[in-house]
């Protein structure tokens, strides 16, 4: 077929209807005129000739109709007719339409949001050129921290990568001369931008050739977003000098818009060469082979033709070489490659999104079951109309087509509404900063793929619930229905498709309700579990003395003055200091290798335990609310001139010495060979994440190994937020150039609880959606059965039936279905929550409160949903009814 001609024909037909009709009319008239001319020539007079011509021509209207069909597009015409009819039908039952559209909008909206999140987290690659061949190297499946010298060796000794870049985080106070603000960036190897094949948006970037040893490259490159927000797109910033932690750095360039570093969740403000890290960290990691703080991740493009497996073998070979050469500092774990971006979050994120997809899929299925039964009821209501149309010669195909058009129309409306909601929600999510002050964001943005998915979902669900009444229509016998009247259809005792759908739907909803209750209980339990410290009424004052330009030998004295200053504030009970991060803050925690005292060869294969290591000041345990089980805590005399001492937790004592009481006075060794004497044992706690197994921990006096990055833990009688101003002003008195940050410990716990909270919130929303769906489902079913049987109830009441008997007749079946569905759902839900346990901490379905909660919730839903139909059944007036019939 000639397509343009076809389109022209269609366009003429639909866009210029009246012109086409006029055109056709004129053509036929001219034909008759010609014929009449001929007839006139053969001897007839004009009037007779014209009459004769018209008769010869035949049924003019029929031919016009045929011409119309010849123009093509009959399919569309039927569609337009069907849509018009469907709109009319739907407008006639606004309640049904509203319920159906809203149900679908919720279901499709939920699915679109989940897809948007999946798209943002798992499907969308990093915004860098040729991301397909860009890999991050991992040791032992976690990208984790590694040492800088090991990175340099891997870079120089491997044969698989074009080049390898490394980066870590740089937390700084950035002083532009006008103001001092905390800015977080990446400290990267000089080749970072070249490895990523990234060109600057403005100015230039640094290269490997700029690195000439420690602190040789004082340059920073701003991200476009930070340049925009902090420097207001000022092109003259290139060449300007800013102070990072009191050291001068020159701004040399701006990265392109859309580039947000090489981690999906964390967008840096700027990039600086890693060779200058000591100026920012206050500590040199460039030569510390044994330290895991040198590099966060190593990334690079594979050479053409090199497979991932070959590269991994290569990395393992380099690792084995390093372990042999540096047995004290490096223990090789198997290497792996992962696409850069999510890194260690890939597993949990996949599980989380997978779980969400499953649940939202269930929601959509439940919604389809719901709408299917609604549609079947709707179609049954219209059986008389359908029968009449069949009797008048309409084909069954035509009627089914019309019913499907109705279903798809509803699903498209619902889909559009759901999409609108989900786009708004996703826009909010993408600008949402879950943690105050931390550069964490969710990289989601609605795009064309989302619209396509929503459209596909809408169409599929439209067909899914649209075909439910098909069997009903195909089986319909017009003669019987027209004869018997609409009320004549008996509701049989056998189980109908509709009832099965209802059970399915209630079961799905019960699964959702069970899951959300399990998640909520799990979250509540993890909030009230024993952390090994008491976050209530505790303020964490972060004071990074490096940012204020303190050299490490001046740090301990200053820290002591800061603690003492805190203790002078009225209302403060205790104050103590912990280096780096306190437990459960920013999921940070560093581990150290320890050895039994009798081990002489301190190679890594002889490590006895890897406890979390905290350097604390005297008074820390009191301030943190950690109970001392036995022995003593530290004093200010445990300094560099005193013997090395430690306080360990119960788990450590058990692992190293067998018992708590037996640990006091015993010795163990650190990696550097120092013999440490245990002077006290404290209770166990949580350290890096809430879901961790019980871990050993040791606490060393901060005076024996000072660090400039520290938090002061301040415990008070009342809400510490009220004391925040006093704390800040006290520290300003000590040093006005000190960037101070105060947050309550409970606030910072939000970060480690974030995954649980997110999971619980999403499950809660899904559970609510499920509950709403089951209400509408049961309501629809009950209301339908009551309305179909009002006459029967009238007769029952007239014959003396009691209210309970009427109710039983009206709702017994709906409630029985509810019970079956709920029981099935509860059972499945208990099975499904095994999956949940991986996301939500302490999620266990074997919890009487959860089980009772589900039963109660489903019963309540049943009561709610059957209330109105029950009222209707009870208010039946037999006299009215019998008279009407």
């Amino acid at each position, binding site marked *: *077929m*000639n397509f*343009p*001609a*076809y389109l022209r*024909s269609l366009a003429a037909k639909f866009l210029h209807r009246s012109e086409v009709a006029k*055109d*056709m009319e*004129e*053509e*036929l008239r*001219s*034909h008759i*005129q*010609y*014929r009449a*001319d001929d007839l006139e020539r053969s001897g007839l007079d004009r009037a007779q000739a014209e009459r004769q011509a018209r008769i*010869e*021509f*035949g*049924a*003019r209207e*029929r*031919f016009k109709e*045929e*011409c119309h*069909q*010849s*123009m*093509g597009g009959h399919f569309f015409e039927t569609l337009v007719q069907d849509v018009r009819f469907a709109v009319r039908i739907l407008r006639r039952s606004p309640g049904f339409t509203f319920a159906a559209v809203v149900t679908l909008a919720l279901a499709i909206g939920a699915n679109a949001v989940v897809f948007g999140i999946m798209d943002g987290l798992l499907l969308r690659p990093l915004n860098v050129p040729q991301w397909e061949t860009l890999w991050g190297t991992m040791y032992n499946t976690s990208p984790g921290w590694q040492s800088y010298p090991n990175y340099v060796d891997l870079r120089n000794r491997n044969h698989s990568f074009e080049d390898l870049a490394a980066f870590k985080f740089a937390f700084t106070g950035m002083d532009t001369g006008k103001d001092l603000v905390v800015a977080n960036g990446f400290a990267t190897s000089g080749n970072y931008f070249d490895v990523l094949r990234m060109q600057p948006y403005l100015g230039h970037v640094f290269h490997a050739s700029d690195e000439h040893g420690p602190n040789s490259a004082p340059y920073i490159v701003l991200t476009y977003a930070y340049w925009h927000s902090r420097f207001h797109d000022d092109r003259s910033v290139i060449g300007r000098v800013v102070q990072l932690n009191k050291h001068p750095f020159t701004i040399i360039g701006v990265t392109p818009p859309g580039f947000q570093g090489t981690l999906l969740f964390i967008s840096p403000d700027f990039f600086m060469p890693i060779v200058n890290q000591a100026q920012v960290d206050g500590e040199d990691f460039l030569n510390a082979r044994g330290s895991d703080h040198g590099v966060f991740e190593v990334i690079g493009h594979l050479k053409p033709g090199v497979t991932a497996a070959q590269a991994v073998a290569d990395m393992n070979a380099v690792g084995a070489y390093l372990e042999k050469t540096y047995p004290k500092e490096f223990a090789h774990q198997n290497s792996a490659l992962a696409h850069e971006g999510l890194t260690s979050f890939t597993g949990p994120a996949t599980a989380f999104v997978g779980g969400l997809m499953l649940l939202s899929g269930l929601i959509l299925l439940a919604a389809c079951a719901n709408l299917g039964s609604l549609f079947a009821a709707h179609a049954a209501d219209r059986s008389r109309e359908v029968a009449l149309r069949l009797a008048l010669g309409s084909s069954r195909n035509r009627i089914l087509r019309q019913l499907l058009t109705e279903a798809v129309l509803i699903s498209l409306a619902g889909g559009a509404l759901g999409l609108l909601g989900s786009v708004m929600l996703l826009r909010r999510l993408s600008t949402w900063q879950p943690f105050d002050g931390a550069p964490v964001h969710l990289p989601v943005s609605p795009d064309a793929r989302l619209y396509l998915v929503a459209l596909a979902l809408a169409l599929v669900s439209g067909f899914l619930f649209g075909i439910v009444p098909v069997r009903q229509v195909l089986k319909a016998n017009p003669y019987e229905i027209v004869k018997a009247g609409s009320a004549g259809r008996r509701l049989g005792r056998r189980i109908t498709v509709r009832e099965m759908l209802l059970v399915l739907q209630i079961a799905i909803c019960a699964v959702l309700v069970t899951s959300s209750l399990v998640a909520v209980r799990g979250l509540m339990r993890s909030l009230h579990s024993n952390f090994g410290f008491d976050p209530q009424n505790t303020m964490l004052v972060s004071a990074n003395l490096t940012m204020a330009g303190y050299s490490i030998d001046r740090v301990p004295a200053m820290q002591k003055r800061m603690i003492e200053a805190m203790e002078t504030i009225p209302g403060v009970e205790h104050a103590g200091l912990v280096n780096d991060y306190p437990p459960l803050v920013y999921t940070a925690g560093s581990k150290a290798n320890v050895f039994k005292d009798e081990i002489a060869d301190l190679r890594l294969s002889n490590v006895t335990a890897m406890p979390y290591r905290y350097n604390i000041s005297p008074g820390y345990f009191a301030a943190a609310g950690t109970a001392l089980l036995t022995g003593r805590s530290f004093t200010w005399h445990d300094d560099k001139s005193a013997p090395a001492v430690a306080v360990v937790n119960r788990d450590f004592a058990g692992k190293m010495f067998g018992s708590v009481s037996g640990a006091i006075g015993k010795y163990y060794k650190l990696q550097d060979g120092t013999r440490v004497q245990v002077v006290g044992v404290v209770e166990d706690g949580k350290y890096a994440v809430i879901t961790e197994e019980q871990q050993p921990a040791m606490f060393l006096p901060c005076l024996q190994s000072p660090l400039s990055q520290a938090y002061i833990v301040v415990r008070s009688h009342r809400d510490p937020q009220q004391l925040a101003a006093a704390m800040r002003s006290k520290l300003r008195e000590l040093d006005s150039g000190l960037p101070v940050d105060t947050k309550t410990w409970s606030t910072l716990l939000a970060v480690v609880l974030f995954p649980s909270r997110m999971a619980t919130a999403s499950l809660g929303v899904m559970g609510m959606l499920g509950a709403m769906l089951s209400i509408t489902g049961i309501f629809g079913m009950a209301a339908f059965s009551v309305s179909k049987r009002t006459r029967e109830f009238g007769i029952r009441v007239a014959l003396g039936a009691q209210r309970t008997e009427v109710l039983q007749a009206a709702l017994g079946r709906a409630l029985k279905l509810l019970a079956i569905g709920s029981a099935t759902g509860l059972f499945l839900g208990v099975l499904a929550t095994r999956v949940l346990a991986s996301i939500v901490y302490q999620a266990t379905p074997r919890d009487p409160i959860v089980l009772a909660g589900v039963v109660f919730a489903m019963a309540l839903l049943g009561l709610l949903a059957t209330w109105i139909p029950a009222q209707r059944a009870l208010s039946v007036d037999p006299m009215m009814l019998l008279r009407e019939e």
Partner: protein
Amino acid sequence: MDQAQLLPGTLDLLILKAVSLGPLHGYGVLLRIGQISDSALLVEQGALYPALFRLVRQGLLKATWGVSDNNRRAKFYELTAAGRKRFREETEGWNRLAIAMTTALAARPEEI
């Protein structure tokens, strides 16, 4: 002479043939078909138009309004490039069929 019934599908080919001899309006197509078939083929007047519309939709004919010799406005049809191609193909097809049919029907017992 008796008028023969049209075989199904032959109307389109006849119309293409008629129009290939020069642009025609609808009535003209009828007259031309009568003339070239020695009035042996009869086309129902009204049935012509759906066929014409179909051929236009398929892009084989092009229609333009014009004025005929006796000063009457009429819609004239002419072949498009695609129409000429289709006309050639269908003519060949028809000829092959006709020869085959004629041969088949002329077969005598002694030839088998």
